[in-house]
């Protein structure tokens, strides 16, 4: 799990392992805001974003769905005070809760949020677009780079405090597993990650963040972790380094 809930760039990174983001369409059309605005800036400017952060950081979906229900993707309602409503969708593959649309709820009025939500769903404009996913990947790359520098040494410290025990921490959105094995005066560190999403540069940055003074050649590819086989379906791979 990430160390704590924290905003980063256009995301709010939750300790449960998911992120909160606003689609580009919702930002520009419903909130009249800029696609470059950070999550923090949005939360300062819009009450519905604060409600989004409050309600979806500890649960990826709300209780009520946007009626009529149906389809593979479920939109759930977000409420703020009497009159603000939003709809969110949890994209399980990307582990992102998207705020897909929001607006004022004025029953019977032409600008009521609910007919707007349904029209967007009907035209499929409600869902995140390719641009939203490109921005997500860019932010995740930056997020990993920003977090790994502080969190990787913390992870290593925890693993050193509990030798032979696998310690896992989600850095950015990537789970990183570390095992430290102590043999007399030497310490051997095993690092395992899933290759399903990680970019090579960021994996290398993880190695550097763990041992900034060591060379790449000092790391060795391993076929397993000390206490278990690698998770092949997750494309898990492992490197180790001896430190004395």
């Amino acid at each position, binding site marked *: 799990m990430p160390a704590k809930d924290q905003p980063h760039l256009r995301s709010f990174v939750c300790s449960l392992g998911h992120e909160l983001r606003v689609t580009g369409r919702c930002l520009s059309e419903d909130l009249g805001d800029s696609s470059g605005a950070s999550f923090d800036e949005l939360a300062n400017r819009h009450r519905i974003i604060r409600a989004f952060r409050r309600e979806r950081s500890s649960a990826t979906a709300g209780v009520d769905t946007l009626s009529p229900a149906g389809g593979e993707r479920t939109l759930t309602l977000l409420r703020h005070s009497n009159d603000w409503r939003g709809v969110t969708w949890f994209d399980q593959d990307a582990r992102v809760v998207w705020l897909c649309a929001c607006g004022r709820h004025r029953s019977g009025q032409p600008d009521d949020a609910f007919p707007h939500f349904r029209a967007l769903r009907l035209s499929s404009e409600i869902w995140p677009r390719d641009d939203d996913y490109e921005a997500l990947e860019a932010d995740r790359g*930056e997020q*990993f*780079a920003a977090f790994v520098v502080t969190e990787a040494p913390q992870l290593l410290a925890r693993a050193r405090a509990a030798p032979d025990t696998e310690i896992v921490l989600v850095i950015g959105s990537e789970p990183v597993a570390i095992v430290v094995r102590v043999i007399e005066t030497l310490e051997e560190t095993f690092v395992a990650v899933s290759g399903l999403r990680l970019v090579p540069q960021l994996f290398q940055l993880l190695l550097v963040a763990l041992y900034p003074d060591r060379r790449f050649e000092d790391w060795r590819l391993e076929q397993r972790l000390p206490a278990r086989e690698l998770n092949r379906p997750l*494309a*898990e791979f492992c490197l180790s380094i001896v430190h004395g």
Partner: protein
Amino acid sequence: MATFLESHRLPRLFVRGPDTTGPLDDVVQIRRFREDLVKPSGVTEPTVLVINLEGRFPSASVLVELIMPLAQAARAGTHGPLAVVVCTQEDAVRTVVRALAQTHDLPIFLADSPAELGEAEAAGTLTPTERETLEVLHRLGGRATISAFADTTGLESNAATNRLVNVLNKGFVQRVERPRRQGHLYLDPRAARPAEDPADPTSGDYAVPERVRSDVGALAEMQVREPGPLLANAWHEFLTEHGDYLAAEHEKLAELVKHQDSQGLAEVGRRYAKKQARARRGKDHQ
């Protein structure tokens, strides 16, 4: 045999056109042009040769001299795994090229322009089933193993093999031989990527060697398509094959970390993100 990462690259694309625009009626000159297109040794990896006739108006004799020998070589494999695409917006030229392809049973693709390679028409004699096979391969991003093709179409493995081998034998599909465990890879020439990598000097990866860049791209695409165990093998191969580059990169990253250069670190994070997102969404095939 190509390494696993190499085998995952899409066909290499070369775009060539006669020097002159306007009418083309000098058969000798066009023969010289054609003979210079492919080295006598041919090609060793899947390659797509686009003959760009945009703005040119070849006579029928010139078209025969230019296209026939290349397409015959593509079908027979005498130049290696080579596919031929003719680009033209002239209806008359398209009609002649179609007639050549159908009369002589030649594997020729026709496109309006090199930028529209993805929508190229297979101009030869193909049955509706063979056209459907090409369409499925195209939908799979221009690259599939028998197993992926069978999964998508719901066919048994033997039937999927027959479908792909039929279009392979006609020269409309290319194949990369791989160990049995990984399965041969069938490629749609319309998914080819430029061989002469037009690296963008303003992009973060401009200084990265082409071979590394290609493998980073292949790895990103494999993250979408390949099962975990094969992907893990590809990571091993990447880390082993590019050890020298990674060692040099490691030192640069160590400097950024030691100096707490947050801007430099952010740049590292962003470097491949967009390409990776596009690869994941299957948009990067042109």
